[in-house]
């Protein structure tokens, strides 16, 4: 193993100019960390010692001024990075969606042409329809299963182990999950043993011929959604379980004394008390759903009517090389996210007060 690594390094040295990526990585860590620390240490020093020293005739005024500037010193690197990597792209994408690249360089203002062109493509409407389906099914499924798992594991002794196992898919990449589920959906010819568990069960139950789950339009969308539900349930469970534990015991005890059934306790006492948390979980998963790309890209790549907006956009950008329509699709995703964004910001502001 080590010899292999060394070999690799030697190979890169032979080529001369290129540094081995691992070394490059290491140096960027060292450089990045040193630069950060140096920036913060030095800028604070300069502020306190050179620009506004808290001494001399203007000591008081200087302290005040230093304290006015300091927050921005602390914020500057983060704000710059976020500005360039998130805020600027939003504006730029909006601009790109209203323009078109002219052959030979340069871009040209085309107004809403990209949007109009997009609205004439059946694939776009298919993607939008599927996204809506995803939006209905996945948050509901993941939150539902999560709530179920949270409630069931709450009071049993091995609950934590169970939770840990249900939570596990969270750590698996969407691509890894896609491979995992492709095996589940695998199809073999009818005369052979089925190695995908779905078809094995289907044939065992008396199915005539194995089904190709991922190529049956409309239904295949649900099989893709299942993958995301499988991943997100753990998230919902962890958060809802914490919320369930936060419910005051007295309310439940009172209900028991009044003779409520376990079902009634759950639906009429517990669920109403964790309504906000359910909403938070639901919206968080909704955001994930809107951005879902990897699963569709890996499993069907939008074929057999499984296109979604994120994959449609990727297709436009990097296969059709159409930046205008690609940006327009991105803006559509942004518009769908917007209500949740506004809601989140309003909640955050409420808390700040």
């Amino acid at each position, binding site marked *: 193993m080590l010899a*292999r690594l060394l070999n690799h390094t030697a190979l890169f040295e032979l080529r001369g100019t290129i540094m081995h990526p691992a070394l490059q990585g290491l140096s960027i860590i060292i450089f990045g960390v040193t630069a*950060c620390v140096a920036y913060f240490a030095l800028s*604070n020093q300069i502020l306190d010692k050179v620009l506004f020293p808290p001494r001399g005739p203007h000591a008081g005024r200087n302290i005040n001024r230093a304290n006015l500037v300091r927050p921005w010193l602390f914020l500057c690197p983060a704000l710059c990075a976020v500005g360039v990597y998130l805020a600027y792209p939003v504006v730029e994408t909006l601009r790109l969606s209203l323009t078109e690249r002219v052959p030979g360089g340069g871009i040209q203002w085309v107004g809403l042409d990209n949007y109009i062109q997009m609205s004439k493509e059946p694939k776009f409407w298919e993607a939008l329809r599927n996204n809506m389906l995803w939006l209905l099914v996945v948050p509901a499924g993941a939150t539902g299963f999560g709530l*179920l798992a949270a409630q069931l594991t709450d009071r049993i002794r091995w609950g934590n182990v169970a939770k840990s196992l249900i939570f596990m898919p*969270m750590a698996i990449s969407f*691509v890894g999950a896609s491979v995992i589920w492709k095996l589940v959906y*695998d199809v073999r010819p009818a005369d052979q043993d089925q190695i995908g568990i779905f078809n094995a069960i289907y044939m065992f139950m008396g199915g005539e011929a194995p089904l190709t789950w991922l190529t049956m339009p409309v239904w295949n969308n649900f099989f893709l959604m299942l993958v995301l539900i499988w991943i997100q349930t753990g998230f919902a469970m962890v958060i809802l379980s914490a919320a369930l534990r936060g419910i005051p015991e007295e309310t439940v005890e009172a209900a028991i004394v009044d003779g409520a059934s376990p079902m009634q306790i759950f639906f009429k006492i517990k669920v109403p008390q964790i309504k906000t948390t359910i909403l938070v979980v639901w919206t968080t998963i909704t955001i994930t759903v809107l951005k879902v*790309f990897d699963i569709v890209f890996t499993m069907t790549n939008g074929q057999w009517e499984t296109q979604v907006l994120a994959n449609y956009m*990727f297709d436009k950008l990097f296969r059709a090389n159409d930046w205008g329509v690609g940006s327009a699709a991105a803006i559509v995703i*942004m518009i769908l996210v917007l209500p949740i964004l506004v809601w989140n910001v309003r909640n955050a502001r409420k808390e700040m007060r």
Partner: protein
Amino acid sequence: MDNIAGTKSTLTWVTHISVVILVALWVFPTLGLFVSSFRTTDQIASSGWWKSLFPSEQTMTLRTASPDTQVQEGPLFVIEGNLLDEGQDATIHSWGISSRAVDAFVPGEVAELRKGGTITVMANGRYRMEHSAAFIGSRGQRVFLGTTVAPEFTLNNYRNILFDPDNIEGMSQAFFSTLTVTIPATIIPILVAAFAAYALAWMEFPGRALLVAAIVALLVVPLQLALIPLLKLHLGIGIGKGYMGVWLAHTGFGLPLAIYLLRNYMVGLPRDIIENARVDGATEYQIFTRIILPLSFPALASFAIFQFLWTWNDLLVAKVFLVDATGETTVMTQKLVELLGTRGGNWEILATSAFISIAVPLAVFFTLQRYLVRGLLAGSVK
């Protein structure tokens, strides 16, 4: 409280069974991939992975050695040998010499051959054919074996994919690429975010509320919007596609969550500590590095795990900002997608590669789950 109303035992049982089912449903898919990665190509293709966990019944059709290997022992002509391959862990429970009665005999019994002579087969596969005259013909006798084959697993898939330098489909290079992307992309944003979070949590300045709101807003901005403008930017300023680009991108995309998590945590730290330090004449920089940073360790760890999982598992950002035509910087997720395209049916390759790529996140997950859960709770419930 549990044993009120006498329904306890049934209800408890229902709960236990439901949880078992739920856990099984959630673990099964991953387990299938894991088990498959230890099976040979033939095993995967011939039976479902769930069957490999138990001894399987197999009917084999084999031949004895051909008559030219016969030896003479006194008056008898004898052919001896073993029907099973060396190292094959199978037990024979029945055998036969006719396709109409494949399980006519048990091991040790003696069968009359149609052309004269006798044959006997032992449970371990050894056989002995005897005849008073020489055996004739060019082919050996056909024998049907009813066997019980023990579960059999191999590490060969991992050997091929991780340690075979000639295997261009191997994962070792992609593994290092992923690692190279992940580590700097996890460390750098923490530092940058920590300072900003401190300013947003404990410093008074105009516009603070607005900035916090902006961070919350940016938290949900879809990555998709950033792809083209940033790729354009990277190409424009000469970073191009490569590690530098992907580190910067991950740093930028990770910052809102980092700032949000850390700020929420820092706001909860006791005010007294900070005020006392201020009264004692500590500078803000000292307060931050000596007091806040060490106290915020749990939140830093939470974010580090998030960012690590996210960058390790990412496909889109790597595809757009890193992977170029040379393929030397291919990360594991990208490699898996390629393998799905070219080796869609070769489950031994796919399963092993996929498991290699998810092994590290799973290890991180199981060892540091505490911090992950804490981070999730701080990040979304308020």
